[in-house]
């Protein structure tokens, strides 16, 4: 079975999917899309793949999926038999809650970055304010986790909650959102970057 990722190197959402594919050791075809300036994700051909005109999209056999979070769930569900990345026990709901947070509130950080880096017209002040509010929620959570002797968002090992949350926190400086106020997030990001099979993307430091 061939997995095809409709990908854009600079997209944090595509990076989430590349991270999990790498962690799972899956090989895949990488279809590089000209997101900027070509707007290939809005082309009639790509709208056949994803009518929402967003990246990433993933084809796995006959199945075509959009939305980074849904793709993470699919890949973990299908290829991670022992449930390391998506536990099927009482942790499941907790993992999904933070996965949704990553696809929801944390996307304010992505919006600020699209504004600053690619000139998108949007209310960047609101985006930054909302991103800081979301970062604070995860910062408080990770502070409590640290005090409890834990490193990851849920449970004792990294899950797709960590993968989904990592890119737009790590990349937030490109949208004018610094990490100064978030010591627990900085510790967590450092641990994440130390994971076996971790790889960086432009804007995410390789060195730990």
């Amino acid at each position: 079975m061939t997995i095809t990722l409709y990908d854009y190197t600079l997209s944090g959402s595509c990076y989430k999917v590349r991270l999990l594919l790498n962690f799972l050791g899956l090989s895949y075809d990488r279809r590089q899309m000209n997101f900027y300036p070509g707007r290939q994700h809005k082309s009639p051909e790509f709208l056949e793949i994803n009518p929402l005109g967003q990246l990433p999209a993933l084809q796995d056999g006959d199945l075509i999926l959009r939305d980074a979070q849904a793709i993470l769930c699919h890949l973990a569900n299908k290829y991670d038999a022992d449930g390391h990345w998506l536990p099927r026990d009482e942790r499941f709901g907790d993992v999904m809650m933070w996965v949704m947070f990553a696809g929801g509130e944390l996307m304010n950080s992505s919006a600020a970055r699209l504004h600053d880096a690619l000139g998108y017209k949007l209310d960047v002040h609101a985006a930054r304010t909302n991103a800081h509010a979301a970062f604070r929620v995860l910062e408080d959570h990770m502070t409590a986790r640290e005090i409890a002797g834990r490193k990851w968002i849920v449970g004792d090992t990294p899950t797709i909650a960590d993968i989904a949350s990592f890119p737009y926190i790590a990349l937030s400086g490109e949208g004018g959102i610094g990490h100064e106020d978030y010591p627990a997030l900085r510790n967590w990001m450092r641990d994440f970057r130390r994971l076996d099979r971790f790889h960086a993307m432009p804007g995410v430091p390789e060195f730990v």
Partner: protein
Amino acid sequence: MLAMWRGEDGPVRIWEDRCPHRGMRLSFGFVRGDALRCIYHGWSYRTDGQCIEIPAHPELTPPKTICASSYPAESRYGIVWTNLERGGPAPFPDLGPDEGWLPVRSLYVNRPAGQVEAAVESFDFGAPSSIRLKNPSAILLGIGSQMEMLLAIQPVNADRTGLHAVVRGENASAARADLARRMQHLRAEIEAEREKK
């Protein structure tokens, strides 16, 4: 902006967050052994700030003038103290032997330091508390009869303040989670207040 780092030799260093070469933030760099390397061109700085290696010119001994700018740094009670005036030492309070302090948390409040300080003094940390010591950069609270909490107050700018809390005493270890949560309530309370001019 500051870059704080710790080499393998132990002590924390506090430098201006600026590489003397191209002004890149040194806090984006990485530590190897007892040297901090800038992420931009890999220039390497020894613990005293002196540049010791320029990868693009491996044969060159970097001149003495290429030196990172540093501030005093003292680790005491689980908190790192500095003095941005550079002239004087880091102004930490004298709390006797540096023993038994456990971290609670650091947290940032979008309000001026004066307002944060006033709120800390009257906040309910879960047991009757009293101010045992106060200086411009820290407050020591007695909490109940068995615990002491030290809150270092870091004015980040005119309307943002860092609070760094550590605790010691009989049940300090078990109290950390509750104190960290109460600090969130403290932050919410301060930010809900209107700014006092």
